């Protein structure tokens, strides 16, 4: 029908037809897949939610005299960063906490500040306190460093998230008799509430369920700037059960993404505190789906009612690795605000912001219309549903005392 090259030519000429993932639904309902596929070149998708496997690496520049932070320790606003790299390369993870944070000692812990918040402040252009200490070498004699640092003065500041953009997610409930605090939010006892986390009909991987267009090398909207898909995300699990429409019925594909943090915006990278759980980072991601054929459009036009997910108990089943599902619901049901679980009416809440996801779709649409964002061919495919690629649990093998002695 059309190629990415042809779409890019239209983008450059300002003649491209782009619609958001929300707009395409109505269009297809009114005109049908065939007609819309002829007219529409690109569908923009988006999602904005907490994505814990996010973080950023920095090259902070060499001090005078030099310090080798690698092998030492380092903190940004008291939040420890990973220092197992070369002299002044550090990686700050979204879930990192200051050493003196009480965590869950006073339960449920508030987790007011951590890696996600530092990343947001850096992106907002705020100065951050850097403290590092190391052991000193002949070539890197300095042992201590304390300085204010700003993102604009760093050599590199790169967002590198190993797992983002989950294709579908569980609905979390609590069957126990006490309130529990999870990464899916506070869950009231005896099915007091049901929390879900997906942009559903706007979400990138749900709109390209077989990864026909999204792959390694795909240019994306990332945190308000430009990023790329660099690999499949960790825990990528394309082989889960799918509905007849091809859409996974449980958490499935994921993306590893990268992009220049200096070009991103604090509206789209937001540090969050999850009561009783920890800190995280809300990441805004948008992907433009090129409509290369009718199938791709049909998938891109999936509606909330076409996308199903599983209800999972987070008091026993999830922590104990049981795969029991308490039932299946679609996102249209979830968005009505109440679902039925075990015969009980349960109010629902979303952790993923639909209004922000929609704004990403619109923003990406405007970039493409203005000719500021060209589409990319994927360089390699993500592991597909037929690949046999799966997400395995840890196989624990006890270590006997004798073996420990041998290692020593």
């Amino acid at each position, binding site marked *: 029908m059309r190629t990415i090259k042809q779409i890019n030519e239209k983008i450059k000429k300002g003649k491209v037809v782009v619609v958001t993932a929300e707009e395409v639904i109505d269009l297809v309902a009114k005109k049908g897949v065939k007609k819309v596929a002829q007219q529409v070149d690109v569908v923009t998708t988006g999602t904005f939610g907490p994505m814990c496997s996010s973080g950023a690496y920095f090259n902070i520049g060499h001090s005078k005299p030099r310090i080798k932070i690698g092998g030492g320790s380092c903190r940004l606003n008291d939040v420890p960063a990973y220092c197992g790299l070369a002299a002044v390369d550090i990686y700050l993870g979204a879930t990192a906490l200051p050493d003196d944070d009480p965590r869950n000692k006073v339960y449920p812990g*508030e987790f007011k500040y951590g890696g996600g918040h530092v990343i947001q402040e850096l992106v907002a252009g705020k100065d951050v306190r850097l403290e590092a200490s190391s052991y000193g070498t002949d070539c890197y004699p300095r042992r201590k460093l304390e300085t204010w640092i700003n993102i604009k003065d760093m050599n590199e500041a790169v967002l590198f998230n190993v797992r983002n953009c989950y294709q579908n997610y569980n609905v979390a409930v609590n069957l126990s008799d006490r309130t529990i605090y999870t990464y899916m939010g506070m869950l009231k006892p005896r099915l007091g*509430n049901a929390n879900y986390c997906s942009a559903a009909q706007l979400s990138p991987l749900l709109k390209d369920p077989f990864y026909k267009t999204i792959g390694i090398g795909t240019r994306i909207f990332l945190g308000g700037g430009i990023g790329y898909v660099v690999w499949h995300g960790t825990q990528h699990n394309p082989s889960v059960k799918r509905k007849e429409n091809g859409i996974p019925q449980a958490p499935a594909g994921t993306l590893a993404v990268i992009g220049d943090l200096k070009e991103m915006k604090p509206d789209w990278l*937001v540090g969050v*505190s999850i*009561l009783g759980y920890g800190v995280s980072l809300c990441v805004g991601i948008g992907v433009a789906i090129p409509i290369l054929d009718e199938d791709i459009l049909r998938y891109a036009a999936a509606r909330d009612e076409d996308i199903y997910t599983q209800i999972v108990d987070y008091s026993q089943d999830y922590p104990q690795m049981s795969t029991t599902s308490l039932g299946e619901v679609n996102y249209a049901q979830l*968005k009505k605000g109440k679902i039925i679980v075990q015969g009980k009416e349960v109010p629902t*809440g979303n952790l993923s*912001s639909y209004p922000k996801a929609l704004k990403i779709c619109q923003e990406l649409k405007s970039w493409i219309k203005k000719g500021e964002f060209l589409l990319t061919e994927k360089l390699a495919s993500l592991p597909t549903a037929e690949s046999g690629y799966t997400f395995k649990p840890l196989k624990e093998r006890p270590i006997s005392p004798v073996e420990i002695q041998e290692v020593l």
Partner: protein
Amino acid sequence: MINKRIVLHFPSRLVDQPIVYKLVKDFDLRFNILKASVTPQQEGLMVMELSGKAENYDKGIEYLKSCGVKIQSLSHDVRRNEDKCTHCGVCVPVCPVAALEIEPKTRKVLFHPKKCIACELCIKICPTRAMEFHF
């Protein structure tokens, strides 16, 4: 009849006095305590629903003021920091009085301060801490 939700701040010298009792005894007012934090020799805070005849209600409020109790209307106490709210909606099922609800069309979270009873359940569960308690 009048029915209002108010926040009372007691200076430390008043916390050991039975002031609320007087509202019933002398002014024939009904009260329902929604929240109270009273520690001896420290400032006390009480959130209550107060109802009764308009004339009595005014007299009761006058009495409280004359004792040195500071009074605020409740809706001012929980506020949303609009810059921080991402409109995710995780607060919605937690609110016991539907002061937080989803606007179905835009899916934005609406906050109705008039319905809010300042239970504070939304404050700590908000991932961006957009719901704030103001004294």
